[in-house]
């Protein structure tokens, strides 16, 4: 925690507004040196006090955690990972066509499923449908990957495959909310918000939870909202799934209409008005916090666009993420942004792969569309893993690849598969997980999770565990009771970690 505190002085000048001499500030506070302690007492909620939190030396950490909800907090125990990148494949990639090969499915193609289908299904499906792709073994670990992911296959020794994930809801909406919030029938905080609440942010100019091009369908903002947790833990969205990633922006981050000089004058006059008002209204923490929030907003206006400006990235790096190819450029840019947010200290970064349909939702045209989808993400994801590794970031960054559910091994229409929450594959990489490792399995046909089943709640508990958070202790009291991400469920899968 100490390494984020890079200001050695015990006194700082409050803000930068007073650097402009154009008008006389009629409040004498503005040029006053303020002690850290009094600054802390003046600052309060939200980003407004983040800047100050980062100036804290260790001894003041305790104070920060009660004054500022986003101040960095200690985990419950030693963390393996400091942050998470969630690569969300919207719509449900098929496990039996990607990472979970099933020889019997190939053999029994066209025959009926030899056991019962689930009581509740989304659509009806007919007989078994073999995968149109070949599987091969890769790396030293010899894990199987289908021909859909040739580039990712080269990184297979970094992957920790979980083949036995299962959920409860066969519809996109319910399953998306379950995946993001742990609940499919109540509005609850998103996992990223829980992480923000549990750990705060290491970067005073950025939120702890960022989501890039999320989909507004199937739960929409509830999939990145803080719900009843303090608003500072809301996910900050860059654009949404309807805009290409090079146009994804944080809302209201820019003012293209006012010249910069006018903006600065505006802030200066506003600050003076607010300080005069404060002097008359008497000490009030929220009035003071709001004064600080404008200053931070002004700084965010340059800090966030700077992060989004990729011009400093080398041609090699851009190529690594596939930004030189129109097929991979959009998702590649998101992955590169994710790495940059990782470096900047953001705790939870979600990247969503979602086009103007539900990207991976192949009720039909499995071959054509899964191929198109995989081509868009295969190289960028492999590039991200390579880049994180070569920068030493993979050790404490947990990369999580997954979706709201998998697909049925049985056919819907003739060349499609239905939703299947009963058993599917996700993988993790880095953050202390075992590379080249597989855990759990589905049945012979890949329909149901069979061995070492990992429910979404278990997965959540495991992700929090990697971050040093005990899912049973990460609670928030609301409407009279303590809430957790995992409700009353969740078992940590310790086997996944080195």
């Amino acid at each position: 925690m100490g390494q984020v505190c890079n200001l050695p002085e015990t006194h700082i000048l409050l803000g930068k507004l007073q650097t402009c001499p154009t008008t006389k500030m009629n409040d004498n506070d503005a040029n006053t040196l303020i002690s850290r302690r009094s600054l802390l007492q003046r600052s309060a909620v939200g980003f407004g006090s983040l800047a100050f939190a980062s100036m804290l030396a260790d001894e003041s950490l305790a104070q920060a955690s009660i004054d500022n909800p986003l101040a960095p907090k200690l985990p419950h125990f030693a963390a393996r990972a400091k942050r998470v990148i969630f690569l969300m494949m919207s719509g449900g990639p098929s496990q039996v066509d990607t990472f979970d090969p099933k020889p019997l499915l190939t053999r029994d193609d066209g025959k009926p499923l030899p056991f019962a289908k689930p009581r509740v299904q989304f659509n009806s499906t007919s007989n078994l449908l073999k995968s149109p792709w070949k599987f091969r073994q890769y790396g030293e670990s010899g894990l199987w990957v289908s021909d859909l992911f040739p580039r990712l296959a080269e990184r297979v020794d970094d992957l920790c495959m979980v083949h036995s994930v299962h959920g409860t809801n066969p519809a996109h909406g319910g399953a998306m909310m379950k995946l993001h919030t742990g609940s499919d029938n109540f509005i609850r905080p998103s996992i990223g918000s829980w992480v923000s609440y549990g750990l705060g942010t290491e970067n005073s100019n950025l939120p702890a939870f960022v989501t890039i091009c999320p989909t507004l369908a199937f739960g929409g903002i509830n999939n990145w909202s803080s719900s009843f947790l303090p608003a500072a833990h809301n996910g900050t969205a860059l654009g949404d799934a309807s805009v290409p990633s090079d146009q994804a922006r944080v809302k209201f981050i820019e003012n293209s209409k006012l010249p910069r000089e006018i903006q600065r004058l505006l802030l200066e006059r506003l600050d003076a008005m607010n300080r005069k008002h404060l002097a008359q209204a008497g000490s009030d923490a929220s009035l003071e916090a709001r004064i600080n929030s404008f200053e931070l907003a002004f700084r965010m206006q340059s800090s966030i666009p700077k992060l989004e400006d990729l011009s400093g990235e080398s041609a090699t790096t851009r190529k690594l993420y596939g930004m030189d190819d129109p097929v991979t450029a959009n998702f590649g840019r998101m992955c590169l942004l994710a790495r940059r947010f990782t470096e900047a200290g953001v705790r939870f970064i979600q990247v969503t792969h979602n086009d103007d349909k539900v990207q991976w939702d192949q009720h039909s045209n499995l071959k054509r569309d899964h191929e198109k989808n995989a081509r868009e993400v295969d190289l960028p994801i492999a590039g991200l893993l390579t880049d994180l590794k070569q920068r030493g970031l993979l050790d404490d960054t947990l990369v999580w690849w997954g979706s709201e559910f998998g697909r049925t091994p049985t056919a819907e229409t003739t060349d499609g598969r239905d939703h299947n929450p009963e058993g599917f594959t996700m993988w993790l990489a880095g953050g202390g997980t075992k590379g080249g490792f597989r855990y759990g399995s589905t049945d012979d046909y890949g329909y149901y999770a069979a061995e070492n089943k990992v429910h979404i709640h278990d997965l959540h508990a495991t992700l929090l565990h990697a971050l040093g958070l005990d899912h049973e202790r990460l609670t928030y009291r609301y409407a009279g009771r303590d809430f957790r991400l995992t409700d009353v469920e969740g078992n940590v899968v310790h086997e996944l970690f080195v």
Partner: protein
Amino acid sequence: MVIILMCAVLAAEEPVRVQPPTPEQLRFFETTVRPLLAERCLKCHGDKKQWGGLRLDSREALLQGGESGAAIVPGEPDKSLLIRAVRQVDDDLKMPKDNKLAERQIAALVRWIEIGAPFPEVTTPRTRDPNHWAFQPPVEQPVPTVDDPQWPQSALDSFILAKLEAAGLSPATRADKRTLIRRATLDLIGLPPTPDEIDTFLADTSPDAFARIVDRLLASPRYGERWGRHWLDVARYADSNGFDENIAHGNAWRYRDYVAAAFNRDKPFDQFVIEQLAGDLLPSQSEAQQHEQLIATGFLSIGPKVLAETDQAKMRMDIIDEQLATTGRAFLGLTLGCARCHDHKFDPIATADYYALAGIFKSTLTMRKYIKVAEWHEHLLPSAAATAMRAEFDATVAAKKAAIAELESPGAGSNSALLRDSEATKAALKKMRDELAALEKAGPDLPAAMGVTEDKVTDIAIHLRGDPLKLGDVVPRRTPPVLRGPRVPQFTDRESGRRQLAEWLVDPQHPLTARVFVNRVWRWHFGKGLVRTTDNFGLLGETPSHPELLDWLARRFVADGWSVKSLHRLIVMSSTYQQASTPSAETGSRDPENRLFSRAEVRRLEAEAVRDSLLATSGQLDETMGGSLLKLKNRAYFFDHTSKDLTTYDSRRRSLYLPIVRNNVFDLFQLLDFPDPAVSTGDRAATVVASQALLMLNSDIVMQAATKFAERLLADSTDDDRRLSQLYVIAFGREPTADERQTDRAFLAAADQAQSTGTDADSRRRQAWATLCHAALAANEFIYVR
């Protein structure tokens, strides 16, 4: 808000802990201090061992201390033995024995003692206590005598003053007239007072000047638009389903307008409750009344539903659960939903009580079909106008069809086939068919309202652990027996029982309905309730700060015929309400959280009031009332897969009328703490985050308001001095000081110079004024009420 209050505690010189620790303090204790104590101290000073006679596992034990004396002195870390021990300053007192604590850990303990060593009550909370105060009917309370008989305007003030006097404190002075009219106007109608209204009030020196203001505000149609919105928070109102299938509630707006009108007409609250739960079962005198009562049942229908839930039995029980949870929270302040899977852990609500109530809603028809995508029921609202509209439409369609038929088979005749097959006719036919299709697609929806009706009457079985497949005993419909006072209703097999449930709720002896509602109104006026957990009066809710006042208000409210406007008058005309926001120094430190209502709270405007004030100040507000601004047809998708939200918010109407889209609430609302419209909420947050500042600096709505405000000033006044006066009076309700005038003049000059010389003088001047207006509209003085 909690955090803000927390800071108030920190700022106080000597915080006197008259109140239990705040949730934020406890969270600090639980996340930082308790783990430290548990890990490093309790092995030797806990329940198993007490070395040196010392335990560190409760506040009492810490205060009592061990052989060397008290371990802590709250507020005085330097005088606390615990701190000396962990700092290891004395040779004979170095703790822990193994390794010294990290500086950071010591700092945490110091901090904890500084803020008074908050520690949760160790006495196990009473659970499932049937004698809990909120389950007994309110009793008549004697009005307390007070030392200062001049201060109270009514019994309300006597209850407040008695507590203050008992604590040795005095209330704040009365707010000045400008503050008062701004506060009352924003509070009652959600808009700032106009310069004329301020002048009139200032000029009126009669003793009932303020009463006249209050009467005017309560009579304004703007009042229902403001207070109806408060109720809509509780009713989790939205114009879309949200959840998985986010489709348009095309007719929800009728319920919204019903609520606003109910407040404007001062509909007695008991009637308001009955109509929302059972309006379809009530007799009516007129078609209008019948429609109104049907619309009211929208309350039960507008909740979020998982419409693509493939398990239909589960979907049905989920919808019932949502209705039950909302009804419980809105009217009873109870978390009934807990009892769906197990007996309530804290409140004496058994699973059987839950399914006894659920039977009422199972006997109620909410959904037309449960097959995905499921469809909710709607009441048709036939009227002469609607029938005529429909008839006209049908006639147009019929005429079109006839014309097509005519072209397709143009009667007998030698060249008829030739005519039919000619290119020109084919083209004409195609055009007409397309027109017909478009016409039919755009056909008028007959007026309809979301709402419920009766279904097959049934009692249902307990669902073990909430599972619709694991059924236990059937429970007859009834109300929870733990709530004592009202007459126990009789449920029959002819009616769902919604009417009986509603009548039971508004029985004058009901322990919760009136208390919960007057507490809500108090919360909306003062920023916090007498019971701060407005939506939870159960055992985990907070106890009231003024229990006698709460009972007195509840009984008075019922005695006044459940008149909400009478309740407003009582509150707004009180000395308590009319206090200034500045406390005396002593009161500020002794009552830092203002639990005793020793002053007015400084409060940020809600999202709607911010937007409406921006529009009003800049002269843009469109006061048209009612109707729908949704651009989608009923049940159409807001955004299915594309994430393109086509909803627009560029209307100049009051915020009440803007579409509330679940899963993607309007930016400005989202950022300014508009509550999640999927859940009933009586206590909005008021956060301060930088994204709000970005909104105020960079959004079109604020930029445009600033520009229009400046145009208004430049057009209305002839010189800059008058313009400055006008700016301050409109935005802040006061004249600028001489200092401010000087600063602003300098600012205008600087802003003028800062622009490129290429622009003409007039547009530079406009920009300078717009920027000054922008600053004012973003200023705390504009956004906060004192």
